[in-house]
């Protein structure tokens, strides 16, 4: 397969490269762009270690050809927050969630997608969104707690910054 020019947005910055279009996004990130926070676990979308966001939705980058992200926006763990202080990242540290750490980028990216869709997730929501991410160290109980902690912090922040007449989203948080 011959290389083609692929242009997409990576963590808010334009990325342009000449690459065989069947190359999975994971290997473009790791081998071509030296974005090493996203990890390789299984190569078949079975473990979630390579989870990134495509237009805000979680995808397994090991199984998505880079041609599929042309013209679109990709967010990796490096782009989740400017200083590694997304509420989920803070909650992960507060709960001592990581052990070996290898799966955690993917876990956090899945959790970020969960909270975007369900700001106040139930245990069933957490199971539904997170059961695609394997953790061999068994950090699941702490991941569950960290997601709830982050959800609570984000809700509190939304309330704290809410003023009457602001967006409908903020009112939803209050209700």
């Amino acid at each position, binding site marked *: *397969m*011959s*290389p083609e020019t692929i242009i997409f947005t990576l963590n808010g910055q334009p990325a342009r490269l000449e690459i*065989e279009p*069947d*190359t*999975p996004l994971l*290997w473009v990130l*790791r*081998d*071509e762009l030296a974005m*090493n*926070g*996203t*990890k*390789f*676990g*299984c*190569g*078949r979308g*079975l*473990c979630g*270690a390579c989870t990134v966001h495509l237009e805000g939705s979680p995808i397994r980058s090991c199984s998505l050809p880079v041609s599929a992200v042309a013209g679109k926006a990709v967010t*990796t*763990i*490096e782009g989740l*927050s400017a200083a*590694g202080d997304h509420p989920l*990242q803070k909650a*992960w*540290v507060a709960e*001592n*969630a*990581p*052990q*070996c*750490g*290898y*799966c*955690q*980028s993917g876990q*956090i990216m899945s959790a970020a997608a969960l909270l975007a869709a369900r700001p106040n997730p139930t245990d069933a929501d*957490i*199971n*539904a969104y*997170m*059961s*695609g*991410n*394997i*953790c*061999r*160290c*068994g*950090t*699941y*109980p*702490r*991941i*569950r707690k960290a997601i709830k902690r982050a959800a609570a912090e984000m809700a509190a922040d939304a309330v704290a910054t809410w003023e009457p007449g602001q967006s409908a989203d903020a009112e939803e948080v209050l209700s």
Partner: protein
Amino acid sequence: MTMSRRQFIRNASVAGGALTIGFSLSGCSDQQLPKRNAADFQPDSYLRVTPDGEVIAQVFKAEMGQGVLTGILSVLAEELEMDPASLRYEMAPPHPAFADPEMIMQVTGGSNSIRLYYDTLRTVGATTREMLITAAVQQTGTPASELYAEAGRIRSRDGSVDLGFGDLVATANTLAVPENPPLKQAADFKVIGRQNDRLDAQAKVDGTAMFGSDAPVENALVAVVLRCPHAEGSCGGWDAGEAKQLAGVEDIFQIDGGIAVVARNYWRARQAAEAVNTNWQAGAAPLQSSDDIDAAFAAALEGDEYEVVREDGKPPVAAGARTLAVEYNAPFVAHATMEPQTATARPMADGGIEVWVGNQAPDVAQAYAAKGFGVARDRAIIHNTFLGGGFGRRAAADNVYEVAQIVARMQQPVKLVWSREDDMRHDFYRPVMKARLSASLDGNGDVESYTHQIVAPSINQKIMPHFLNAAMPAWVPHGVKSAIGNMQADTDHASVEGVADTSYQFPHFRVQYTNLQTVMPLGFWRSVGHSQNAFVIESFVDEMAHASGRDPVEFRRAHLPEDSRHRTVLDKVAAMANWNQPAPGRYLGVAVHESFYSVVAEVAELSMEGGRPKLEKVYCAIDCGIAVNPDIVKAQMESGIIFGLTAALKGKITVKDGAVEQSNFHDYQMLRMNEIPEIEVAIIDSQAAPTGVGEPGTPPAAPALANALFAATGKRQRDLPLQLA
């Protein structure tokens, strides 16, 4: 594992290993200290203080999730009177100063890091503190009795002295190292037993933690390796076909152990590898397939080739009121670390090689880097990274041997990446095992006689030659190393640990072991022999309790020493789980097991949903002496329990013609978020010296679950994996 690896080391030390617990400046040249910088104050191998006042600790054990990095920094910080988070750290290189006193090599394993180094690290911290105080006495004339360390400074009680550690480095460097620095009283601890933070957490949530394939090496090519799928098989020929012409492919060539495919990135390398034609041949050795192995093990149980590992008392003259005789089975299981094996390496200008790898035995990695690259060991530099899971798998350095050979040919930087399939099919597996248990109970239901027969292949016989390559001087021929590996197998404690050394007291107690090898490579799998043996002994003790109509907790207590830690953790976990009065519809199973000098009891709690058992909760009590970081101890119990439950419910590697039949997470499954129980952990309050925590949570998980399944269903499951149906 306990005695096996250690006994090996004691024996191996005769053949040439030196035993040291760190080097100090006295009597040693600067070159002997790891990471020596002449401007720094470095009273010992484990840390140095820079003129800028930074304290830099050497993380001389592999951080694979168990929290040892936090443990090392915490113990040092306690005596230094610092916040552990204010210490800097470096991953230590392989260095004789860091050779494990029990294993000779710089191995991280056996849950022994804090147990073995607690006193050493406190002494190093205290030595540093006292020398900095002495330096302050010399610089200010203030008596030592007026000075104290606080927050990285030496201060006087009247406020007249307030010097940073860095201000004292030059003076401290002129001082003799004191022999017996005073250690803090436990009542004065600010960190040990009190701090719950995990010091590597931030790097592991923002993507910056470096693993073996994340090395900051520019322009690295990526290699994959095709390996013979048949253990002890061979390559009957291969040709690259069109693979060499594919886009991005740099080279395809044979190495010791496989065919290397090197390309511009992983995907091109993997695509090319699939186009290579190979003719792999199974070997001729016996016992290559799961069915044959099972039949041979069954025959061995009947045979007369065995070693009596332990026999106390005499067998009863007549059979007791009740007798039992049953058989248990455990399959091969894989480590399946989240990070498949990886390593990055590059040639150095001076002719040596530099390797980045997360490894539990960096001196083994160094030996293999040197061997693969064809240089002396001191020309191989190992940068140990974080490990994406270890569990025993990363004690081997097969990946380092591969990458070093590939770099030798390419003469440019190479990143080696195993696929998940490579990792699943070329592991060092937990051994398959078959056991026969027989017992005789008296009229009260007390045990008169207990016999535990084990047939299992020796781990040490298989893996020791791999290690000895590193532990022994380079000039010892490989055949000698293999011979020593074979000798070790005769007394392989790993196969009988947790049984031969159990604390249960039975009037007649016999353990016998038959070593029957298969073709499969074997290794240390989190808790090693304890992981299968605890399942067997704790399930069978449960069977004996039920056969005699006695409560499983009471029955265990009755056969354990009166003031034992086993009884303490049993009582604690029984109280936590409301053992005597479980909630309606809940079924409990208990297990207690000592491993790595810690004792853990667990209770599994099940409910029944539509006729199917559902695992609701696991209660756990551990006695590990002083818990340096209580939250990490709890995290390790959670981790060990989930690891044990995953194997208990899903773990089974089968083989055909020496080839593993599983390949990825669809056919070798892991417990996931939606399947795990709630877990509640209690740590027994103790001032005893710290003992293991990385592994001891694992062994009781499988038998606690099996015993709960019996309570819920009335069906005794004696074969792993267990069925939740």
